[in-house]
């Protein structure tokens, strides 16, 4: 695992609705520019949804790690 300092972790494993990306969007909306968010998701769709939204909203996907049964996404609020 990385040594990046995470400001907030969203453990969305097993959560299909409202879904890991929705929770990330909510957290970024409330967060400050520069803050780092970690999302844990077991939802397969997150692997495409989260990077696609991060790119569209012009934030930064700092890291993606596939663990057993779930994925970690580390996202920095860039603007």
């Amino acid at each position, binding site marked *: 695992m990385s040594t990046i300092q995470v400001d907030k972790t*969203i*453990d*969305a494993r*097993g*959560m*299909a*609705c*409202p*879904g*890991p*990306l*929705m*929770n990330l*969007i*909510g957290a*970024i*909306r*409330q967060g400050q520019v520069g803050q780092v968010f970690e999302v844990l998701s077991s939802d397969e*769709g997150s692997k495409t*949804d989260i990077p*696609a*939204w991060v790119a*569209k*909203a*012009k934030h930064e996907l700092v890291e993606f790690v596939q663990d057993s049964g779930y994925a970690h996404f580390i996202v920095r609020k860039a603007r």
Partner: protein
Amino acid sequence: MAAEVVILGGGVGGTIVANLVAKETHRRAHVTLVDATGIHVYQPGFLYVAIGLEQPAALQRPESQLLRPDVSLVVDRATRVDPAARRVLLESGRTLRYDQLVVATGSRTVLEEVPGALGAHDFYTMAGATRLYKALQEFERGTIVIGVAGIPYKCPPAPVEFAFLLDDYLRARGIREKTQVKLLSPLNRAFTIEATSKLVQPILAERGIELTGFFNVESVDPVAKTVTSMEGETVEYDLLVLVPPHRGQMVIETSRLGDERGWVPVDKNTLKHTEFEHVWAIGDATNIPISKSGSVAHYEATIAAAEIVAEVKGESPPAHVYDGKVMCFLETGQGQATTIRFDYTHPPVSPKPARRWHWAKAVFNKTYWHTVPQGRLP
């Protein structure tokens, strides 16, 4: 001496816990439910009020009529919880001591957090839904935009359902061809759940409802009549309907029982507060990243009630914990609906939209008063 069980909030979750704990403990617990208004509101009906299909009066009943006679109802506002002293302070100055506390205070909407949005319409309060219906009745032509201005929000399917019911309404009034309906979705599809989106998107296209993805409303310019997203896009409107941002109740924030948005941190299975003993939270009030909906509050309430009953009786905790069960209806318009069911370990499934699901929802809405608050449905 009877255990003092105090429940904050007379919505679906709080009412079920109160009735079940009183029933199962046979006077070994004294159950008190605190509610700020004493009026129980069936919030899923707001959607129908907004479109003129339901009357506000049909969605409200005195809480006292829904509680067992052995539950004490206190109509007052909880202003502070002191978990160390196990006390709740009320607005009237009264103090309630508790052995077990259930926080079922729901959520509140804070449209004022979105710059420029205060004049926008919503269907998340009775006042909002009533005002929206009035505006729709006066609407003749133009662009109606439906957007989401904060996450999490109650009832994830609601914006899509509203789009479909609005389409029906406009057709019935004969002004559909003069009206553009735009649905701005926070995700790159119509709905959070992919399987449900696949069912819903072709119907949106068929009805001429324009879907814009990855549009999380950030601000509104009420003079230019435009709405701008976190992603940097701007859309024009004539009538704007927003899902407002939600927060936990003030009492959670002032008592530091929750996180920075007022959501109470609980174990996702036992629903017990992660920090304070003898405190449970259920329904919208929790920080569990799952649907904020009546069905979640309902299922969680039965679990929290069973745990409290075991504690009052000095028995070991029940083996059955909250498994993340959610069951929602989703209206697809023209008299049809689908359902969405899932839990922590089973992915969502939705049947093909059909008339029978629309009728099932209609029957549930009408029979709610006689079944759910009393804990008669498992």
